[in-house]
């Protein structure tokens, strides 16, 4: 079936740098996307979401970009901190059914002090 996928399984950055985590989705009908952060042994934590009628949305230190033309989603984290170290998942909602989320393969972000 169709699913969301990530380009890189791991990403290592220096503290203070900006991080960019990418996600490619395959279902052009998807209209709602969410980024989650998951720390070891914990539940996914909501970071930011974006609807398909937008191409950019900003939060606190995070920005999500949506490129529907190439079906690409990215999460930018500014001034990455050690506490940002976690696995990041993008998830998509495909309309027509319930609001279940289809998760991509996570990217493990490691922030080096």
């Amino acid at each position: 079936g169709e699913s969301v996928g990530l380009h890189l399984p791991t990403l290592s950055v220096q503290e203070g740098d900006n991080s960019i985590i990418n996600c490619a989705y395959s279902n052009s009908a998807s209209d709602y996307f969410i980024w989650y952060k998951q720390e070891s042994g914990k539940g996914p934590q909501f970071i930011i979401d974006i609807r398909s009628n937008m191409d950019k949305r900003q939060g606190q230190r995070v920005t999500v970009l949506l490129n529907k033309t190439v079906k690409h989603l990215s999460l930018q984290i500014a001034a990455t901190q050690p506490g940002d170290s976690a696995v990041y998942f993008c998830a998509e909602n495909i309309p027509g059914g319930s609001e279940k989320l289809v998760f991509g393969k996570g990217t493990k972000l490691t922030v080096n002090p």
Partner: protein
Amino acid sequence: AAGVIQSPRHLIKEKRETATLKCYPIPRHDTVYWYQQGPGQDPQFLISFYEKMQSDKGSIPDRFSAQQFSDYHSELNMSSLELGDSALYFCASSYGDYQETQYFGPGTRLLVL
């Protein structure tokens, strides 16, 4: 702010036993989702409920069943447990069922021996 509550947090069972996982959504949330996450995997949707009615079903084995009660809490019943059922089970809740943010609980870690 109140979060999703799941119990138990950890559960150890033998093969062929049964297990019941409970989920208490955020107050006022009327939609509950269950996801299963294997080691190193992304969460996979199992089943969801909106206003106490099943709204969608994913890759949930026939050995599993779930329901949402009048107070909106949900229970996932798992019978004839198999080794492969060992995983993290997350419950998420939202208010409404259309492009509403799903907030995840801390999960129940099930180990089947």
